[in-house]
């Protein structure tokens, strides 16, 4: 139980990553796969932020005087996640437009049905 309360955030991040991977690998519907990517990415962001957390820490913003720098959470993972979120939305937008085009060409989003070219 101690482990659970200690690692709540890691467990959440880990579960999201696994669920996202499951959707990506197993689901046949392209839109579903893209949703899986969104969940997968969210899990990764949560993991990164959790890595930078400091217990009882404050946000790394000197919004009012008297904040102790020693008790602030690590800003680096937050900066990385900010960048990663924007990259993620870029990839998702491209994936969505490709899905729309796939539907226009094939009339289906089922990935097993649209495999024309093989090895």
């Amino acid at each position, binding site marked *: 139980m101690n482990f659970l309360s200690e690692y709540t955030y890691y467990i959440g991040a880990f579960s999201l990553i696994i669920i996202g991977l499951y959707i990506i690998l197993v689901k046949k519907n*392209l839109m579903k796969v893209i949703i899986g990517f969104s969940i997968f990415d969210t899990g990764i962001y949560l993991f990164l932020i959790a890595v930078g957390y400091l217990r009882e820490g404050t946000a790394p913003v000197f919004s009012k005087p008297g904040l102790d720098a020693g008790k602030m959470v690590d800003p680096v993972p937050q900066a990385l996640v900010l960048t990663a979120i924007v990259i993620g939305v870029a*990839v998702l937008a491209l994936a969505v437009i490709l899905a729309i085009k796939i539907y226009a060409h094939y009339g289906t989003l089922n990935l097993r049905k649209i495999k024309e070219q093989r090895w």
Partner: protein
Amino acid sequence: MVNPVLFIVVPLGLAFAIPLLKYISKKIIRFVPALAFLFNLIFALRLIPVVMDHQVHVQIGGFIPPLGINLVAGPVGMLFVVLIALVGFLVSIYAFHPIKEKDEDRYHILYMLQLTGATGVVLTGDIFNLFVFFEILCLASYSLVAYLGNRAGIESAVKYLIQGSLGSGLILIGIGLLYGQFGTLNMADIAGRIHSVQSISVYVPLVLFITGFGVEAALFPLNAWLPDAHSSAPSTISAVLSGIAIEVGLYAVLRVVFTLFGITHMMGLFLLLGVLTLLIGELCAFSQDNIKRMLAFSSIGQIGLLVFAFSLASTLGIAGGFFQLISHTLGKALLFLAAGYMIAHTGSMEIASFQGMGKRMPFTSLAFTIGAFSMVGLPPFMGFPGKFMILKAALHDGQMLTLILLVFILIATVIEGAYFFRVVQVLYFAGEDLPDRERAPVAFSRFVPMFLFTGLIIVLGIYPSLITDLLDASALELLDRPDFIKSIIP
């Protein structure tokens, strides 16, 4: 001396400016990529003597590493920058001639962004920054594969995107794991803290990185996307994808394996993986009727050969690997350009439809033939010294496993020769009974890049010693890990 950051910033700035330039004149847009990469090529070549002497480190924002992001312009990095600029410049000449009736400016922007991303990957010294530039490269590649907008293009792009972004996600997890343990993102700094790959928490990021970058590097079994993507993109883009994109992916794998983690004990596995990739690629290429798919599978095979060479982890092997890498880049770019030009004439990608091309398009056929001979490894073309160096390195290594694998490599080379000769035979000797059609003149914008690629392949094939110093220095940079670390984090 020019600041290496400009190799990234100048093409990027010009790419940003294209939508504005469009208002001034639509004509000049197609010359912008050539301009950018000519700049890179000239100044990168001038920087090479400096780099051979000592690595050039660039801080960004005025913060010393590991606090800020730094660029490392060592021999390896500059070798790739020159290669990217060279291919970028020559292939963009090919695009002077309007290719499609579609939006031209977007093509040029994406093309420049793709190569800028590649340049960023090979220059940066920060693992997260590498990831960001890698994403630019990948995203531009996905879009360009789908550029023609036909069924095959869109479908390949979707496949490519799914596998590629899965890989990127894994890389990001790996970065998070490394930061959690070592508290830094600078590659040299991390490398200084990884003394041995023993514990599971160092081993997992390594696997994640190899998997993630391996997708782009087309390592077996992560290369299911490659044949479709390379064959359904426009020919110029296929040339860049085969000549630059997968090599940059391989660079990332090399950086991670040699510099970041400093692995020495798993090389047998990589040797095996390389030969497996080689055999599968060549066998699949042999059974193709579609010329672009054949070339794409041949790229997989070549990547396998490169992985084999680099996994020997000796100066000789790595230098040979780099030589073969350059040879593959130039040869494959030439082959795709020549094939693309012939496809544009016949309107078909079937090899059988190229009958009699030797008479109708003599120069293009000759260029294709030279590229094919170089790819197989015939003297006096560039592939010969490359394969010879790898052979020598493998014999020098002398281990039982290496020697056994060498036999398979020779078999693969024979297969490679068989399918390339088949195409050459179709070009020149098939279809004698066809009525003599008139010769098609070569457009100037097509002639120049093909001619220069051919020239480079022959010159470097005859005088390989022109670049061996640079290759040895590159091999040393990869192998001498403590020195690399010390030069950045004193």
